[in-house]
């Protein structure tokens, strides 16, 4: 059998190298040995990569330290053990979904630009349908939903450009307990849809300061003060995405110019038991405005100024007509 000149199957090669390297690998998995003699054994222990730990990684680990204390592992079941007696310590299993490995290992992270689950800030969507057109698999559909228009909910200089309450149209009341928790709602760990912060009702009668409404959820009628009510519109643009077809290519995100349509960096929360479960409507893709406040503010300002110009033009036309 002709031999490769650089590699002779001989006695030495049978025993020396393969046995040596498997022994070294096995010894290296014990943190006591792997961390002390890592360099001499040729590579590092799995969890001590000094070059991988930059400031950003440390900051990221610190941010989730209350969930999993990576620096003082006592018994948290992750891969960084407390070193001395690994065979006596806890199993190394990461208890997904309660814990995530990227929250525990400082050098591991899901990057912000990860093509994860779709998230949309519906408040700033302009229904331009660029995303629908660019999707290679026809996953996106525009629909409408009942929502409080962002202009109606504005404060400060952008306030007052929204619509008015009308009989036969809808109105909404804030749900204070949800509103209080919205700041702390974390998409990453919630595994549920964003809680609904509005309670919708149909306006039956308007009279001065009070309005008679019929709640959508219970069908009961109630009389409320107009000051509490926000006008709601059931033609607010919304959408549905079929995640069963989606191949997470990210073209929709690029087509939107990265203002309303995002791919969050979450890789889960997309499971269901039927194919219909994978049709995500607006409530399951809703990213809270607070997440990208500047984009929302910019869009809001744009719409407010458009409305302002429109009213100014209308007012000018009225005065011109009045003059004429």
């Amino acid at each position, binding site marked *: 059998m002709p031999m490769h000149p650089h590699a002779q199957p001989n006695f030495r090669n049978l025993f020396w190298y393969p046995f040596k390297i498997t022994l070294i690998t096995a010894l290296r998995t014990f943190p006591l040995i792997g961390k002390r003699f890592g360099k001499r054994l040729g590579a590092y222990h799995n969890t001590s990569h000094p070059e991988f730990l930059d400031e950003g990684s440390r900051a990221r680990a610190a941010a989730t330290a209350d969930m999993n204390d990576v620096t003082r592992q006592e018994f948290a079941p992750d891969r960084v053990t407390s070193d001395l007696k690994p065979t006596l310590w806890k199993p190394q299993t990461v208890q997904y979904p309660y814990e995530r490995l990227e929250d525990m290992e400082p050098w591991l992270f899901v990057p912000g630009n990860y093509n994860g689950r779709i998230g949309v800030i519906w408040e700033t969507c302009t229904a331009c349908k660029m995303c629908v057109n660019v999707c290679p698999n026809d996953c996106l559909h525009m629909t409408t939903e009942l929502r409080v228009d962002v202009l109606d909910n504005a404060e400060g200089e952008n306030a007052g450009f929204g619509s008015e309450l009308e009989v036969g149209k809808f109105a909404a009341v804030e749900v204070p307990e949800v509103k209080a928790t919205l700041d702390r709602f974390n998409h990453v760990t919630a595994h549920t849809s964003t809680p609904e912060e509005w309670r919708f009702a149909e306006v039956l009668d308007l009279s001065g300061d009070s309005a008679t409404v019929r709640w959508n959820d219970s069908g009961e009628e109630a009389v409320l003060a107009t000051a509490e009510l926000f006008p709601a519109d059931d033609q607010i643009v919304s959408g549905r995405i079929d995640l069963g077809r989606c191949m997470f*290519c990210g073209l929709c995100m690029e087509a939107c110019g990265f203002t309303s349509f995002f791919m969050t960096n979450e890789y889960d929360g997309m499971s269901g038991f039927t194919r219909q479960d994978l049709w995500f409507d607006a409530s399951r893709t809703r990213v809270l405005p607070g997440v990208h406040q500047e984009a929302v503010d910019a869009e809001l300002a744009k719409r407010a100024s458009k409305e302002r110009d429109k009213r100014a033009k209308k007012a000018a036309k009225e005065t011109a007509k009045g003059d004429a």
Partner: protein
Amino acid sequence: MAQMWITMGPQHPMTHGLWTLRVKVDGETVVDTEAELGYIHRGVEKIAESRDFTQITPYCDRLCYVSAMTWANSYIYAAEDLLEVEVPERAEYIRLIAAECQRLASHLMWLGAYGPDIGSLTLMTWCMRDREMFLDLLQELGGSRMHYNYPRVGGVKRDIPVGFADRLVAKVKLFEHRIDEYEMLLDESTIWLVRLQGVGYAKAEDMVNAGVSGPNIRAAGVNYDVRWAHPYSVYDQVDWEPAVEKPTSVKGADCYDRYRVRMEEMRQSCRMILDAIEKIPGGKNTNYANGDEMILAKAPTRAPEGATGFSHYECTRGASQFYIQGGGDGRGKNPYRLSIRSPMFITIPYVAKTMIGYKVADIPAIMGSFDPCIGETDR
């Protein structure tokens, strides 16, 4: 014992993909073979006729899913040839780094499957462990671990993140130690050698006549690497060398030569990455915004009717070619025809004939050494 046909059928732990290899054995010796392909034909070429040039890129990722970045790059060069776009140099460097990271991941996947085929069960987890490093890097760049949709006509989707260069260099340097460890386990292990040497001879002339390319012919001494012979991107500006083995037997290259070529290719890829990240124009720690002209050139979206684009690219398993003819139904936005030349589609029938005369136990050794990927074979 009479001769009998054995079906190493579509479901088999060894076949590295979804295809059937029917083998006629006489005792333990292989007498004849037949390969049946097409189980995962997905019609990518037909789909491409109704998609924009940007929309086709994610489909090309899925051709050979193990080396997705190289296939997407390969397509993009053809599209850029068609639309006559000049790609900024920084984007070319980024594409090179991404493609070489992908090549490393693909070769590690190959080794991680090949080792257990031969019997060295340790290799599977070692290779997956190291592949994770490169998958993490590609995840930072492209947004996903497998199907990135990263190149765009005229450049790349986004720039390298801040801190990416440090992590890249650290991981590549660690990996170079790891290649030494693999060689310690395999290269001079007698059992590995007696399984791989003298098995699966493939002559250079036969392979070139059959159209085989890539590491398989470089193992036979043919110094043909598309990146070196017809350099595209910035491969002529980074410091590297094609990995070529001169076989020791006149009978051709055996499995051991093909294995050595891929190990050397891994070393060369590491060398390339370390050089490219230093030479990248604009610096390795700057991060340009998406769509900035440093990383993405403005490209037309329509191709005139009758215009053609062609790319010749070195994918991990051989030379891939894309041929696009413009002017489809979208009046130029879609290609009229996209034709993909897959190296493995050419190689697998050749490999099936290589196995004749060896033992049944050599089938996984030979088959694995040619590194089949059925995704690109069936398209």
